[in-house]
């Protein structure tokens, strides 16, 4: 009863309070500058009635899924490899280190050059943002595999392949999951940036487009949706991660 209050009612009240404050604060500005929550809700309704909204959400989710999948498919094997072969890792580490702090946004010109416009560069930007967390956590997960697991494996005469597939990969898995989780966050945050690149659809495009029309209400509607969807993806991921953790006995 009490925990129900604390877990649902109080947070709901906070959200309501926040919306109220926002509504009142918005009165000080014309809606073109700083729309009130009511304006934003109307904007969402308008976009949804157009049908624009659902298409854009679908496209964004598809782009995100594609980019994320590619980051996972590229990052995990590379990470497993570099984590296992420390020398190779040490050799290419400086490159990773220099490329990583470069904002995905700074990659725009090259993204257009290599991938043109439309889906590909958007996917590339999101990919870039998601790739590094996956890669780096995978590397450290592999390096963090308890020595005793490897000792046991060698002791029983398991070959390199069996050790890799049956010991290192599953042992690194919970660590990799953390990376996948972080990557969802960073990838999603760069969705808007990615879709500014000549994309003709998607939530990011919708925001940019609304900005061009000075439809601040639609801009904020887009932001809100990006936030809510991001939260939903994040929660889904967390649930998945917890399930894995329980199975692995890490979180239990």
């Amino acid at each position, binding site marked *: 009863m009490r925990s129900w209050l604390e877990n649902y009612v109080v947070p709901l009240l906070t959200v309501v309070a926040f919306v109220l404050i926002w509504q009142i604060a918005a009165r000080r500005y014309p809606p073109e500058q700083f729309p009130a929550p009511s304006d934003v809700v109307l904007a969402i309704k308008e976009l949804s009635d157009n049908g624009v909204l659902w298409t854009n959400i679908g496209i964004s989710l598809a782009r995100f899924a594609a980019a994320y999948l590619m980051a996972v498919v590229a990052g995990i094997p590379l990470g497993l490899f570099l984590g296992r072969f420390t020398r190779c890792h040490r050799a290419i580490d400086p490159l990773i280190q220099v490329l990583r702090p470069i904002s995905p946004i700074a990659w725009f010109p090259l993204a257009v050059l290599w991938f043109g416009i439309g889906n590909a560069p958007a996917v590339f930007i999101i990919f870039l943002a998601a790739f590094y967390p996956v890669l780096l956590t995978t590397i450290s997960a592999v390096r963090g595999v308890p020595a*005793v*697991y490897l*000792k*046991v*494996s*060698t*002791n*029983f*005469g*398991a*070959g390199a392949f*069996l050790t890799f597939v*049956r*010991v290192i990969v*599953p*042992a690194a*898995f919970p660590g990799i999951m953390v990376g996948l989780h972080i990557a969802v966050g960073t990838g999603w945050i760069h969705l808007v940036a990615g879709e500014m690149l000549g994309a003709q659809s998607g939530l990011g495009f919708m925001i940019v487009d609304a900005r061009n029309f000075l439809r601040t209400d639609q801009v904020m509607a887009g932001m809100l949706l990006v936030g809510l969807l991001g939260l939903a993806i994040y929660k889904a991921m967390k649930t998945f991660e917890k399930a894995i953790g329980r*199975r*692995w*006995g*890490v979180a*239990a």
Partner: protein
Amino acid sequence: MSETPVSKIQLRDVEKRFRSARGDQQIALSRLDLDIKAGEFVCLVGPSGCGKTTLINLMAGFEKPTSGSVLIDGEPVTAPNPDHIMIFQDYGLYPWRTVLGNVLFGLQARRVPAAQAREKALAALEMVGLSQSIDKHPHELSGGMKQRASIARALAVEPSVLFMDEPFAALDAFTRLHLQDELLRIWTEKKPTVVFVTHDLDEAIALGQRVVLMAPQPGRIQKVLEVNLPHPRERTDQEFATFRKRLFTEFHLVHQQAAAVEYQI
């Protein structure tokens, strides 16, 4: 060539040095000789840092001696060998595999056919009394059950030597006593050679046919005590108490040396 019965494990003039982070050499083991017969149960005891783990790692092939030779069955030990299984204090169970899956691992590594592997694994689990829990994951087990699983994993591949590095140190006293008895029962049945590291004196006397007392700096063998009591031993017996007293007295000596070192730190 020689007519004398060859030992199962033979250490000759073994020295092991480590280079510390600061670059200076440290003698973990200094010119050590030890012979262990086939089927013998030997306990290694000694204060922290006296080289027990280093010594057992050398025998198991996880480390190489700086000089001297380590032979098992007359062959130099160059690498870990599935015929000589090490059991660790923290079990080394794979958390993502069930108990059965863990026991199967060793057999899979040796490419035992699936049906036969399953049979052997179940037999080993039966032996350690885990038949009820084969489908559990390690995190669902108590410490004692985990160590049982790890022993079953070793037994399944029928090794001729079991190395155990403080296998029961993380368990509470009650579980510890229980597992000691189980281990003795298994040993009596299978007669593998067992090298057992502990820092619990009572444990050493309850288990070992010989207790090798080590001393630190440099790591060396201080004394070897033959415990010629039949198994299973009654821990509260008069005879047991006699061996206990002898070992305590020896230990006190070593202990004081070690303590003196601790205070120098």
